């Protein structure tokens, strides 16, 4: 576990905003959002075990506007986090650190995430 003299990370307000740190913070924020997705996934499975009334209750809950907006955010968070995760793993093996590579990979990840999320919802809504 962490020692007591462990320094804190600089807080978000001190950064000069640029593409690289914005994408990095988005990675963290989307990961945080996805934790709630994991909780929802667990509750969904538990409700299946609990049977009809619990499952219907969960469906009713999921139909609330706020929860629907949460699912929308969750889908973007998922596709962003999963694609940007590949970018992070590439860095871990030492690839893609040049400025132009960072910009290109960042652009691919952001457009890819938006594209994937749009395709996902078009499929779900039966428009595709």
């Amino acid at each position, binding site marked *: 576990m962490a020692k007591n003299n462990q320094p804190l990370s600089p807080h978000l307000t001190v950064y000069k905003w640029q593409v690289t740190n914005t994408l990095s913070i988005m990675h963290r924020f989307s990961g945080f959002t996805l*934790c709630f997705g994991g909780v929802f996934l667990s509750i969904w499975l*538990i409700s*299946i075990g609990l049977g009809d009334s619990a499952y219907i209750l969960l469906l009713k809950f999921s139909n609330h506007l706020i929860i629907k907006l949460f699912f929308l955010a969750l889908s973007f968070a998922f596709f962003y986090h999963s694609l940007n995760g590949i970018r992070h793993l590439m860095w871990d093996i030492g690839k893609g650190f040049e400025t132009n590579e960072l910009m290109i990979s960042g652009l691919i990840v952001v457009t890819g995430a938006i594209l994937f999320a749009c395709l*996902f919802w078009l499929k779900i809504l039966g428009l595709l």
Partner: protein
Amino acid sequence: MRLFLRVRKIFGVAPFEHSSEHWKSQRQTAIIVFFLTYWLIYQIIFTLHGSDLILVKEWISNPINELLIFLTVIFSLYHGELGLQVIIEDYIPATQTQQKIMFMIRLLRLLLMTSVIIALIYLRL
């Protein structure tokens, strides 16, 4: 014994990991969760969305689906906990409060995980 420790970590019944172990586990689980969640997205699009309980139960009665959804939950929650630990270490001073928050997250993971396991076993009975 190393394998046993690995299994304990996956199920959240091992001590909090040291930095280098944490770093490795985070990457390993990332790769596993990547494939599992895209499988889940595929299942949501083509089977799960809009299904009623009977259809969902039928889907989950397939052992492959049940195994994969089980692994998805286990590894997602594990990967999530590792991620949350980094956030907490970055923004909350290393005090008792930090330890308490980490403990609460571990507790929540264990609670969700055991409930899911019980639900899945119950569906098999």
